[in-house]
Structure formats: C-alpha cells, structure tokens
C-alpha cells in the first residue's frame, strides 16, 4: 500500500511535468530527487533553445554557458516554476519518506501487560489474546517529529489566541444560537457530496444510500440544508473523509503531524484533506468559474463554525490538561481510530480493570 502511495506521488510529479520520463519509471524515492529534477530541467536540449524559456538569460551566442551562471539560472527558473510547486514537491517527498511505520514498531511497548492485571489471566478470550499479542500503538510512541510538531502547535495556539478565538467569540456573541445552528447544518449539508463520494470509494453502498438520502431530504424538506430533517427520518449523519477512505484501503497513518492552521493530522489525513478538497463539486464549480473566493470563504466559515462549536470543550481540555499538546495528540489518535470503526466493530478492551489491589483501603 505504501508503494501504491509512492506511485501516486510519482503520478502527481509527472503531472507537474517536472520529472523526465526516464526517472518516472523508478519507484524509489530518495534525497537526490530534487537536485536530479532540477538538473533534468536544465539539460542541453532546453538551453539550446533560449526562445522556449523566456526567463532564461543566455550570455553567449555560441551556446557556451558559464557553470556558475547555470546555477543562477536555476534559481531564476525555479521562481518561475513557482515556490508553491517546489514546496509541494518537497512536502510530498517528505510525506513519502515518513510514511514508513517501521520506527513505530521499534519501540512499541505493550500496554496490555498481564502483570498489571493479576488474577485476570484466566478470563482472556481468543480475541483478547490477539489484542495482547498485537498491542495498539500508542499516540506518544508515534511522534518522531515531536519537537517540530510542538513548534507548529505553539504557532497554532498563538494564531488561535490572536485571531481565530476572538472571531469565534464574536460570532458566538453576535449571532443567536438558532442562526448559528442553521449555518452549521447548511455547511454540513454542503459537505455531504464529499461524504457520498467517500462512501462509494470505500465500497460502502449502504452508507452511500444513507448519505444520498440525507442530502436529498435535507436539501428539500430541510430548506437547502438549513434543517436536519433526515436524522428524524432515521438517516443519521456519519462523518467520512478521504483520510478514512485511505485508511480503509489499508494505508498506514504514518507519524503524527501538526499542520499549520489545520492542526493535528498525519500524512494520510493530510492527503485526505487534499483529496476531500478535490472531490468537492462546489470547489470544481468555483474553480471553473474562477470564483475560488467561494471556496476560501466556505473554508473560513467552516473553521469558525467548528471552532465556535468546540470552544467550551477546547477550553475545558486546555484547563484540565497538564500537557495540552499530548492531550490533543491522544484525542486525535483515538478519535480517528474510532471513526474508522463501524458501530458493531467497537470494543473497549484497553481500559482499566479490577484487580486485587484496587480496593479503597
């Protein structure tokens, strides 16, 4: 599955027309890719036809080029290829390099320790033995970039403090609860097509039926999504996103990542975010009509809506936590794990249990 994703990265790279056909065949990703890509960009063929690259300065008519000038031109052209492309390539490579979960297993410590639960061994069933033998990795053991993540986290906290939270508070205080709820439902209704697409991609026809039903009922009876009429009709909302779809395809989450502004994530869910954006018909519409501003506005409102909805919970968590970063990391981990499960798959085995030593004096 990892190789599938790497292949995916290569497809994307080839879309950006930066990789030469010769390299595209290779599925191995290493640190030398960036220099190679740039070398390929400036092979003789391109340089011999200065007209094809207007940004390129060619000093000598005889085709001779000072090697140092070539370096300079590299920079000039890269600016032309746009910083965004470069940054996204670097990010993709970073993701693919970090997708290997092997380090997570190196130091896997089992919490399912029998010695902690004396006198309980005879109750272990087959399923529990499976769980004891394959302990679920814990959130704090899956964070190799912790210091970097903490840095981004404090940036997000700062941004939150100076911008997002004041906006949420204003929204909370100025807009009555009834109106805020309508906005929340309308936003959720607009996101149902993406949920539907993900239902299909996961092969979950029953889920797709429910989502389609929800969308139809709420868009009509629910007055363009302002009211959630379908939950009362027995069609409850279930969140799906492309990160969960990737998970259902067996792709590993990879290490914990804190994304700027967006917050807790991991490579898989970061891909998922991009996928959801690409799957959304409203974004297509906005893109083709050159009205991206709608997409951005919607995302902005979504952030403020989610933030306002969780204002109390977040502050409660922040106040009760000793290490808020670690708390959020664990919350994210557990929440994503739970969203991946169907209702009937849920079990709670990794919990405190009675033993011989837990009586109150």
């Amino acid at each position, binding site marked *: 599955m990892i190789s599938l994703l790497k292949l995916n990265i290569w497809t994307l790279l080839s879309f950006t027309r930066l990789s030469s056909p010769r390299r595209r065949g290779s599925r191995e990703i290493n640190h030398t890719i960036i220099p190679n890509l740039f070398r390929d960009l400036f092979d003789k063929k391109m340089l011999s036809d200065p007209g094809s690259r207007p940004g390129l300065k060619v000093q000598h008519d005889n085709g001779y080029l000072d090697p140092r000038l070539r370096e300079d031109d590299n920079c000039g052209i890269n600016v032309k290829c746009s910083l965004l492309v470069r940054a996204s390539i670097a990010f993709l490579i970073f993701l693919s390099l970090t997708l290997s979960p092997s380090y997570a297993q190196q130091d896997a410590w089992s919490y399912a320790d029998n010695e902690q639960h004396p006198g309980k061994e005879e109750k272990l069933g087959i399923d529990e033995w499976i769980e004891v033998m394959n302990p679920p990795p814990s959130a704090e053991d899956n964070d190799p970039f912790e210091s970097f993540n903490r840095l981004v986290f404090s940036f997000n906290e700062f941004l939150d403090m100076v911008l997002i939270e004041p906006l949420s508070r204003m929204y909370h205080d100025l807009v009555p609860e009834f109106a805020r709820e309508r906005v929340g439902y309308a936003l959720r209704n607009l996101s149902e097509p993406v949920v539907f697409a993900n239902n299909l991609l996961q092969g979950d026809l029953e889920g797709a039926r429910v989502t389609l039903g929800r969308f139809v009922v709420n868009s009509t009876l629910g007055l363009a999504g302002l009211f959630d009429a379908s939950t009362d009709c027995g069609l409850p909302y279930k969140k799906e996103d492309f990160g969960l779809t990737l998970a259902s395809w067996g792709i590993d989450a990879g290490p914990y990542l804190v994304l700027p502004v967006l917050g807790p994530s991991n490579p898989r869910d970061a891909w998922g975010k991009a996928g959801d954006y690409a799957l959304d018909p409203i974004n297509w519409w906005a893109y083709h009509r050159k009205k991206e501003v709608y997409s951005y506005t919607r995302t902005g409102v979504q952030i403020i809506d989610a933030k306002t909805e969780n204002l109390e919970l977040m502050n409660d968590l922040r106040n009760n936590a000793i290490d808020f970063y670690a708390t959020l990391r664990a919350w994210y981990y*557990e929440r994503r794990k739970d969203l991946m499960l169907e209702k009937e798959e849920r079990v709670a085995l990794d919990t*405190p249990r009675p033993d011989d030593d837990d009586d*109150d004096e």
Partner: protein
Amino acid sequence: MLKKFLLSAIFLVWTHEAIATVEGEKAEAFMTEIGNKVITLLTNHSISPQEKAAQFQDVLETKFNVRAIGKFVLGRYWKQASKEEKEKFLALFKVSTVSCYATRFSEYTSEKFEVVGSRTEKDGGVTVLTRIVRPNGQSILIDWKIFEKKGEMRIYDVILEGISMSITQRSEYASVIQQGGGKIQALITALEKKSGRQSR
C-alpha cells in the same frame, strides 16, 4: 475431536451470551440510577454549592474505581514507581479527577440523559452506551465501562464520542513523565501545581 471442540465452542458462546444479557441489564440499571442521581443533584437549587460539590465527590468516589483508573493511567510507569510515589500519585489523581469532572458536569444542566443500550466485552466488563441530549437536539455519546467486583458495580472508564478518557490521560501522563526525564516525580510535581492552581 473437531466436532467436540465446535460443540463446546458453541456452548461457550451461548452461555456467554446468556450471562451477558443479564449483566447488561443490570449495568444499564446501574447507569440509569447514577444518571438520575447526578441530574437531580445538579438541578437541585435548594442546597448550597459546597454541599453540592461534596455530594458530587461522594458519587464519584463510590461509583468510580478511581484507584484502578489511576493505576491504568500511570501505565508502564506503575511498576517503576515506589510505594510512596504510587500513593502520592493516586491521592493527587483523585483530587484532579474530582475537580475535572465537577467542572465538566456543572456545565451540563438542562440536558437529558438516556441509556441507549449495552455491550458485554470479552474481558468480563460491560460497556453501557448512553446519550446526553442537548436542548437543541444534538446529542453527545458517552460509553461507560463497568465491572462488577465482589457484587458491587463500578465505573472503570468513560468513553466520550469514542475517545477513552483513560487512554488519552495515560498518553498525556506518559508524555509528561518522558519530558521530565522518565521520572514519576515530574508528573507528581505537575499535578501538585495544577491542583494548587485550581484551588486558588
């Protein structure tokens, strides 16, 4: 041989199921009772806030097994801890849990508490599924992991929207201890600081 094994397996599953439903109903009744108790306590305006807090603490201490939770939450460090550290930690953990839930529950006032169902787990515990319905119709799902020991039922974990409070707290505490150079004292100091901050 195989037939015998299959038969006994079927028998085991069957008896397991039979016991499960009885235990499930008992656990659901237990949770309904606690829920009603807490709600009457929270909506009772005739008693003083101090009295309310004391009664609330009493519910927590008798209905939750705070000691077992504390032990679990310390995770891999429980075995490393000295007897002194264990006692100190458990005392602080109790204080912090009580104050944490006291503030959390005090915000839920006009909500409805419903027991939705239960699920018997393979470790002998029962998970009771409940729902808190807010005035605007949105609901919060809370699962409670319950074990019966010596004929007495107690809550061992709270799972809020699929997020186990014990697991997240274990992860947080492990992080605090790791940042403090692997010393349990680091966690104890942090908890002391926090309880001092909250009582002021």
